[in-house]
């Protein structure tokens, strides 16, 4: 308990430092006369702009108890608009195709949130594929068969030795053209194959860190090699590799920003679009960073939970 006041001092120093950094950022932006306009970012997070309802053909309007009915001239079934907030036509008006009929208030996800969800989707799908690819490659790497061993070695070396950006281009322009892949699929393939190589190395070192006696004990009980792997070696290896695995999977989320180069509207591309629409460059990029941080810290929290749950045994 004696150390308590001492520690408190350091906590206070920490808070002061953070405030000082924030102040430094603010004053730096003052020197270049930057005008912070955080409110401009808001519509791109929660979109509250009303939705326009447009006529799809020529016809006439009739209003009954604030419910608008359009009778089309070409015999198509009537269109009834009952939930509009503002009607922009009057009873008996003649309507032409493309006319603005009504406005409806709405609350939708902004572009940035849609981008966030795309990033989340790409990351989650790639995460599962990369774990699968990594596991297969790790098992091939530790096998005695020179074929699978060399194949896995080649895969890991080639993937680790080339930049992800180049790999994305190759998958999209070459494989994508040959196999007619959608850009979303191409992005997931590139990310999974890239992360899989790192996962393979992490898992391999994890498996090799388990004492050989564990495999011997399992085999001496009559277990086949696959069974011994599944029930004895891998559960221990997974637990041991959780910390490096966490940082690799966090890298996966961050690396997913590179798929924006093949025009997938992920969080980064959404950020670029919003910047060109709002001119609030600084605010948007800070927001994008915060949203990435939200994803990565959630993942890191989840993995820490798993680690704690597994911590009860050796």
């Amino acid at each position, binding site marked *: 308990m004696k150390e308590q006041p001492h520690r408190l001092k350091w906590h206070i120093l920490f808070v002061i430092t953070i405030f000082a950094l924030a102040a430094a950022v603010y004053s730096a932006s003052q020197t270049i006369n930057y005008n912070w306009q955080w409110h401009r970012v808001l519509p791109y997070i929660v979109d509250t702009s009303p939705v326009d309802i447009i006529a799809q053909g020529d016809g006439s309007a009739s209003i009954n108890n604030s419910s608008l009915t359009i009778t089309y001239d070409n015999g198509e079934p009537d269109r009834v608009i009952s939930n509009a907030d503002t009607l922009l036509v009057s009873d008996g008006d003649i309507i032409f195709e493309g006319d603005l009929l009504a406005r409806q208030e709405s609350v939708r996800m902004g572009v940035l949130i849609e981008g966030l969800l795309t990033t989340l989707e790409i990351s989650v799908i790639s995460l599962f594929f990369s774990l699968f690819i990594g596991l297969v490659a790790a098992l091939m790497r530790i096998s005695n068969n020179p074929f699978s061993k060399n194949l896995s070695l080649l895969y890991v070396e080639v993937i680790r030795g080339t930049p992800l950006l180049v790999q994305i281009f190759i998958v999209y322009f070459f494989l994508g053209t040959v196999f007619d892949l959608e850009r979303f699929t191409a992005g997931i393939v590139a990310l999974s194959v890239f992360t899989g190589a790192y996962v393979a190395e992490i898992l391999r070192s994890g498996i090799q860190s388990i004492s050989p006696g*564990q495999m011997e*004990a399992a085999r*001496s009980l009559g277990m086949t090699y696959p069974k011994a792997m599944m029930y*004895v070696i891998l559960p221990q290896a997974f637990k041991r590799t959780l910390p490096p695995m966490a940082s690799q999977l966090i890298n996966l989320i961050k690396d997913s920003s590179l798929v924006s180069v093949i025009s997938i509207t992920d969080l980064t591309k959404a950020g670029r679009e919003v910047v060109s629409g709002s001119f609030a460059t600084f605010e948007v990029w800070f927001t994008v960073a915060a949203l990435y941080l939200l994803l990565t810290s959630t993942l890191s929290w989840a993995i820490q939970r798993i680690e704690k749950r597994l911590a*009860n045994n050796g």
Partner: protein
Amino acid sequence: MVNTYKGHDMVVTANVDKIYPNNCHALKKVTTNIKRGEVVVIIGPSGSGKSTFLRTLNQLETITDGDIIVDGVNMYDDRTNINKLRENVGMVFQSFNLFPHLTVKENVMLAPLKVSKLPKSEVDAEAQTLLKRVGLAEKMDVYPAQLSGGQQQRVAIARALAMKPDMMLFDEPTSALDPEMVGEVLDVMKSLAAEGMTMIVVTHEMGFANEVADRVLFMEDGSLLVDDIPENIFGTVANHPRLQKFLSNIL
């Protein structure tokens, strides 16, 4: 050849040779046979090949030349299923090798569940019986890390017994234990021997060898030099100069 020994000997080895890739000659023409129900203790200085020999009997080590027939099955016959053979041969290791991610009871239950595919209720009951037998009924649900060395080794014995083997191999089962825990493990082994289990034990516990063994094998430098009953080994006149030297060094 394959069925010649069925019904007689548990293990027959003939001219077993083992040469490691680095040209270390670990086993030299080891020939012996072990009868059903026999307790055989292998002694010898470290590096004599006694552990290597033991580990060839369930093929944790492969051999370079010779024949090993376990329970009438030639181990190096192409038709032999080594996993089936191992189910019938329990092994206890110097460093226990319990599975740290499983509780004591789960350690004992794993192989019967996943290898023999027996129903869980039956396996559970059997595991409880085995753990009671080695005196660890109250430690059923703890993890191995929370047990002492002696307790861990007793769990390892129970785990091997769960597959209902016909033979048990012990590879220096007490060498990693604190002295005060050696007794509890040897007691379990003695009771096993009394029940008629075929046992091959590599150990430095000469008291155990003298008391429990039907036969003692003395190995040195990869060769089986002496194969005799304990009375002749530990008696006043050890009739082999190298054995005499070994015994005088450790006793």
